[in-house]
């Protein structure tokens, strides 16, 4: 289900508001309606529109002042803004353009023209935005910064794979890593820095560096306890002024390929989903640890499981269990359980093509990451 574009209509004339609202609704737009600039400001606190269409002439706060007020507020400044007016005065229009209003629409413009003007305006804004995003991504690539692996590890007797989509194509706070120690031991890392887009993405590298370092140091000291590794990472994050105000979840799995044993510890992460091929049961494997950096003692524990051929594991972040229902956004772990159940005896590549993950691609509301591990022989 594609989300319809949200328009905030602002006009002191209830009739114009109603007529325009109905007409735009029919064209597939979702309209938020405000009778004054103050009412619009209240609505903005609850929902962010894709575009604002505001009347010029309104009592109390007029369209100009409303636009000026929005420019002064960083989170509202960038919402595309168009003036809706019956004025044909060039000076007024010029004044509007100077307020970064970018465009105006005359009220008596035929509706199909209004709709195409809005669509054109939105696609210009989107193209500009995508260009900027591409430039930033190119810069990140040039610095060789990746928060998900560029290739999969080869582990004797196991298949490992992952699926990842970032929020609105921005790099985000989810990070994945496979740390190969030797032929026997591989660490699987899945984290989610709380936040979205660039801010979270930036911090994901800080967390990943700490995690890689802690794993390597512990292993070099002969310490193979995922619980101890998590506590070490937690200590550093808790005391580091750069990242201690940023929180992250972490699922850490150590795979011992020689013994077919996994050891798992988690920090504020979602429970892993384990499919036991012997009895056909699907169960959640939970952990007790708190989010990284939240408390000095993260209260971490450790779960060890011996795997049989055909057993599968799924590790995932909250984007996988968030979805947009008829009554709004929801979070439900069971939606994933239900979606993956028909695929338990099929290759992971088929689940990657499933409607469930495809819909996450088109309509997801957060970063989504899913790691898959199967004992093959």
């Amino acid at each position: 289900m594609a989300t319809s574009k949200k328009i905030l209509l602002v006009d002191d004339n209830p009739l114009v508001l109603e007529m325009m609202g109905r007409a735009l609704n029919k064209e597939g737009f979702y309209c938020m309606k405000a009778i004054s600039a103050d009412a619009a400001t209240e609505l903005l606190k609850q929902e962010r529109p894709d575009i604002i269409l505001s009347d010029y002439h309104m009592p109390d706060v007029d369209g100009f002042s409303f636009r000026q007020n929005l420019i002064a507020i960083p989170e509202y400044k960038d919402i595309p803004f168009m003036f809706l007016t019956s004025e044909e005065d060039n000076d007024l229009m010029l004044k509007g353009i100077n307020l970064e209003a970018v465009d105006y629409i005359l009220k008596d413009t035929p509706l199909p023209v209004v709709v195409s003007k809005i669509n054109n305006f939105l696609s210009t804004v989107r193209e500009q935005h995508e260009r900027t995003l591409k430039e930033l991504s190119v810069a990140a690539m040039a610095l060789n910064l990746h928060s998900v692996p560029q290739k999969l590890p080869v582990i004797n007797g196991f298949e490992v794979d992952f699926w990842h989509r970032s929020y609105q194509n921005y790099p985000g706070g989810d990070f994945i890593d496979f740390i190969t120690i030797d032929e026997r031991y591989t660490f699987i890392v899945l984290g989610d820095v709380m936040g979205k887009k660039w801010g979270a993405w930036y911090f994901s590298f800080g967390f990943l560096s700490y995690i890689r370092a802690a794993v390597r140091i512990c292993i070099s000291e002969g310490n193979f306890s995922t619980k101890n590794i998590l506590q070490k990472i937690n200590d550093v994050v808790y005391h580091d002024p750069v990242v201690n105000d940023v929180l992250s979840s972490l699922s850490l799995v150590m795979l011992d390929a020689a013994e077919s044993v996994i050891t798992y510890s988690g920090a504020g992460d979602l429970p892993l989903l384990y499919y036991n091929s012997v009895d056909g049961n699907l169960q959640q494997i939970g952990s007790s640890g708190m989010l990284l950096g939240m408390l000095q003692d993260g209260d971490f524990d450790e779960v060890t499981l011996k795997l049989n051929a055909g057993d599968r594991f799924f590790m995932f972040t909250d984007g996988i269990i968030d979805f947009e229902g008829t009554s709004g956004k929801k979070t439900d772990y069971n939606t994933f359980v239900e979606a993956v159940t028909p695929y338990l005896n099929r290759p992971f590549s088929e689940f990657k093509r499933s409607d469930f993950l495809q819909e996450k691609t088109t309509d997801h509301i957060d970063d989504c990451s899913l790691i898959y591990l199967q004992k093959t022989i």
Partner: protein
Amino acid sequence: MILETNIYNKALIADIQVKEANLTVSDNFKNEMAALIDKGNKYIIVNFEKVMYVDSSFLGALVSSLKYAIANKAEIDVAGLNKDVAGLFQLIRLNKAFNIHASAVEAAINKS
């Protein structure tokens, strides 16, 4: 303002005014919580009664506020979580970090 506050008994009840507690409001929420703690409030109940959905950015802001509260010898409890949000708190163990109450007023009455 994301929060509307009322003093009740020894508690300050902070009602979240939005239906979707997400990235767009998380920074403001964090700043408003910090201001409440700076004013010397020692027991704040964050009321989620109006909230239908919480994303990880907002949870991050809530946990950050808790850390700030602890550093300032203040307490933060939460109340009025709907079934989904309560489920999420439990899934990621936030129920161990926060006292969770069915209603904010009940929590305020029970605070001795």
